[in-house]
C-alpha cells in the first residue's frame, strides 16, 4: 500500500486553494495536468511545502517541473518516502 495517496494530495490541494474555491477534485483529475486544474507553480510550490512538512520528507526541486499530474506527483512522493529511513506519520 502506498504511503501517500491521490486522496492525500487532493486534501492538501484543497487546503492550498482555500474555501472560496471549494475545489472538488474527481478521481479523473489525477491524470490531468496541474495547470488544467488551476494549480500554477506557486500553488504547486505550496503543495510541495505542505507535503514536506506533513510527511517529514524533502522532495527534489525537479518535482515542480517534472511531475505534471497529481498521479505523477504521488508516485514521486512515494519514491522518496520508500527511500526515506523512517517516514513520519501524516501530521494532518
Amino acid at each position, binding site marked *: 500500500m502506498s504511503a501517500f495517496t491521490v486522496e492525500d494530495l487532493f486534501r492538501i490541494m484543497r487546503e492550498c486553494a*482555500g474555501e472560496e*474555491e*471549494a475545489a*472538488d477534485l474527481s478521481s479523473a483529475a489525477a491524470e490531468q495536468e496541474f495547470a488544467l486544474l*488551476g*494549480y500554477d507553480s*506557486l*500553488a504547486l510550490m505550496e503543495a510541495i*511545502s505542505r507535503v514536506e*512538512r506533513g510527511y517529514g520528507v524533502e522532495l527534489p526541486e525537479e518535482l515542480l517541473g517534472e511531475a505534471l499530474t497529481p498521479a505523477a506527483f504521488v508516485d514521486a512522493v512515494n519514491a522518496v518516502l520508500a527511500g526515506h529511513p523512517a517516514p513520519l506519520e501524516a501530521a494532518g
Partner: protein
Amino acid sequence: MTPAPSPPVALLLPGQGSQHQRMAAGLYGHEPVFTAAMDAFFDAAGPEGVALREDWLAERPVTELDHVTRSQPLLFAVDHALGKLVLSWGVRPAALLGHSIGELAAAVLAGVFGLRDATGLVLDRVRRLAGAPPGGMLAVAASRAEVTPYLSGDVVVGAVNAPRQTVLAGPDGPLDKVGRTLREAGFVCRRVPSLSAFHSPVLEPACRGAAERFAAVDRRVPSLPVHSAYTAAPLTRSDIDDVSFWARQPVAPVLFWPALEGLLATGDHLLVEVGPGQGLSQVARRHPAVRRGTSAVVSLLPARPGPPEADRAAVDAAVARVAAAGHPIVRTPVPHDLPQRPATAV
C-alpha cells in the same frame, strides 16, 4: 428540443508578470489582423516604436522585457492585438476583463480610447514610472487576510488574484524583508517578474500629472461591457469621466478575483485569455463555475515561451475550442506575401 445555448465569450487580458521575450511573436507576419494591430501600435508609438518593435522581436533585447518601458507597452500592444484577432473571427465578446495594464487594452477594444491616444497614454505612463524608486512584486500563496499582519514599510497588497494568491508590492528592501518574514512563517512566496512596485504607493509621485494627459483625450462609453479589476464591477460612466480613476491605475490594487467573481455572477462564460502565457487562465480554472464545467477557459497562447510555431499551434487549437463551444469562426486567410511592415494602420 433545442441545444443549450453556448455561454458567451469573455476576454481576459493579462498584465504585469505575464510578459516574456518574443511573446506572441510567432503570430507576427502570420496572422494578418494581429500583425496589422501590432504595426498600428508601433506606428502610434512614433520614434519609440522602432526600439519597442526591435526589443519585442529580439532574442536579446537591448532593454530587458521586465523593465517598465518594455513590459507595459508591449503587454498592452500584444493584448490589444490578440483581442483584435479574436474580434476579427466574428466573435462578439459579452465582456472584457483586464488585469493591470490589460484593463487599458480592454478599454481600447471596447472603444473607450482610440489606439493612438491610448498608446500615447501608456508611453507617458512608463516615462513617469521609469523614474520611480526601484521595487518589485511578490506573489504569496495566502489570502489577503493571512498576509495583512505581515505588511510594513510601504509594502502593500498590489493584487488579489485568487482566494489564496495575493501579490505584494513595495520598494526592494522592505519587500525582501516582508518576504523573509512570510517564508519564516511558512508561507510560499515567489517574485513576480517586475522591476517596479506596481499597484503600490511607491508609484504615487510618478503618477502625478498623468490625469491631465487622460483629460486631454477623447473617452467614449464602451461598446462592450468592461469589467474593471479596480472596482470589481463593470466600468460606469462616472469611472470613464473620472481621469484620476485612469491615472491612478498603476497605484491602485488589482482586484482580479473579485472582478472575475462579479463577471461570472452575471452568468457562465467561455473565458478566452488574450495575452502571453496562461496566468489568468490558471487562476480562472480555480473558480467554482469553471471547476464544475459550466464555464470554461481557452488560452490563445502557450503556457510557456516556445518556438514561433508553438504560438501558431496554440491559436489553431484555441480556434477549434471556441468553435466547438458553439461560436462560429471566420478566419482571415494568410496572404502569401504578407509584408513584414505594412504601412497602414488598422
